[in-house]
């Protein structure tokens, strides 16, 4: 079964760019790699999703190398409101069973 590894926590300052990397092996070849943000007492919220290379939307960029064994979420010019837990999510097929596998989460703290 695929495994994911993310840093437990990261600190940064307002206005900086933050990059969070998730390592994931044995992921499903046809599935997207997805990142979510979660604030306390709320459900996760979708940030961005990609299959390979680079994807950019209005809030983030996602970099995925050709081997798809990792992905890096990039948050440009963070603000205090970006303080949250960030999760990577990948899919895997094992013994014909499909599973969605979440990373353990990276607690990002933004300082003024």
């Amino acid at each position: 079964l695929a495994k994911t590894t993310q840093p437990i926590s990261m600190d940064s300052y307002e206005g900086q760019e933050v990059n969070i990397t998730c390592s994931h092996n044995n992921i499903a070849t046809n599935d997207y790699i997805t990142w979510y943000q979660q604030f306390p007492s709320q459900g996760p919220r979708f940030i961005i999703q990609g299959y390979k290379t680079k994807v950019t939307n209005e809030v983030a960029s996602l970099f995925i190398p050709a081997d798809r064994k990792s992905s890096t979420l990039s948050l440009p010019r963070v603000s205090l409101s970006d303080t949250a837990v960030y999760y990577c999510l990948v899919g895997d097929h094992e013994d014909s069973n499909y599973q969605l596998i979440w990373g353990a989460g990276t607690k990002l703290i933004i300082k003024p």
Partner: protein
Amino acid sequence: DAGVTQSPTHLIKTRGQHVTLRCSPISGHKSVSWYQQVLGQGPQFIFQYYEKEERGRGNFPDRFSARQFPNYSSELNVNALLLGDSALYLCASSLVWGLEQFFGPGTRLTVL
């Protein structure tokens, strides 16, 4: 437009009892997934349904079961509750499997 709704919001049960949690997806969404989230940890995948068929199952005991109805709403059932089943149970819906998931507020289950 209504988001994903879950009921009940809170539930207290005793060991050995049975519980049914309900989820209504966003209108038009055909995929529903269930997750268990213990405080301080990432979500753990329980089930995914698409077009009323089970598409994936996480590493949970057979005490956990689910189903999706013709209107795409879903139920998660847990039998013979254990203290360790105490957690936030999240439901998420998406247009089709693999795409952006929208999460409900969750059901907080406490097993005494």
